[in-house]
């Protein structure tokens, strides 16, 4: 069985592929800082606090 570091590297490698595909992010390491989540159908809005009348005013 792989140790935690190897397992984590595998997870990241898998997820990096998924991130770029789902979020249309550039490859890790090519950008800096944080950014808002992309407006997208890639991460569908499944709970709308405003529509539910719960959003902070």
């Amino acid at each position, binding site marked *: 069985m792989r140790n*935690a570091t190897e397992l984590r590297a595998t997870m990241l490698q898998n997820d990096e592929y998924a991130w770029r595909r789902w979020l249309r992010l550039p490859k890790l390491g090519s*950008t*800096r800082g944080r*950014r808002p*989540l992309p407006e997208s159908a890639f991460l569908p809005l*499944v709970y709308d*606090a405003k529509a*539910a009348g719960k959003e902070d005013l």
Partner: protein
Amino acid sequence: MRSLEKASHAPSLREMLLLLLTAALTTPSSGWERWAPRLAPPAASRVAQFRADGHAALPALLQPALAAGLLEEALEVHRTFSYEKGYKGTVFFRASGGAAQAEPGHVPPFDRLYNLEERSPRLRRFVESPHLAAHVAAFLGERRSLRLYSTSLFLKEPGDSAAQWHKDIDASPIVPASPWGFATLWLALDEVSPETGALRFASKSHADHCTYFDCHLPCETVDGCYNVSAARRLRAGDATLHTGHTFHFSLPNRSEKRRVALTVAFVDAAAEVHGTLPESPGCDFLK
């Protein structure tokens, strides 16, 4: 007069067809509603437990029939899965079609397939259900809008390995404003027990501001830092919910039974994403 009234209110053929169509679409047992049922609001005590510990049990979240339907759909996706042409990454999948593209000698500890809903309209209906998301929002705080982040099928055959201690947030580019901005719903589609590979959680680890990249805990093991929850027995349709910042791991499958779970991860719609990830992990026990 009565006969005239009766005649004028008799539905036309078009109205009859519309009525039949409406009934087909709204009857829970016959249509799409089956895959996105309304869920009873969580008990206040469960929400309080989740907020205190960073994880909670959600017994009987789904009806057994729905859990059985989800299991059937998930297993069909698993049976027919293959990686996209050109995919060169490591895999968490052992079927011949996928394993042929895996790195040589790599034996996945168990099968994990991402985003099954892309291959199953019924699973999409379920994981994108506003009722499911509203249920999770009741734990995270209903003032935050939520997006679906990802889903995974975790299939552990007899003899499959454990998953090591980790925080889901560390395998994600998401940077939520607080621990309440990321949560994973872990749904048992099969019987789950300590023998088949139950989860265990490090209670209150969501509140320690420790991530893989920035962690300053004064202990050498997760067990040394936190109270670790007992391995819960779950029936199909039971679930657990944990934040992205809650340490957890799953036991190996030492039984003769398969264990299947579906996870649905939600993220605060206002969360940010990383650009460059730091290189050095902060916790020795995660290195």
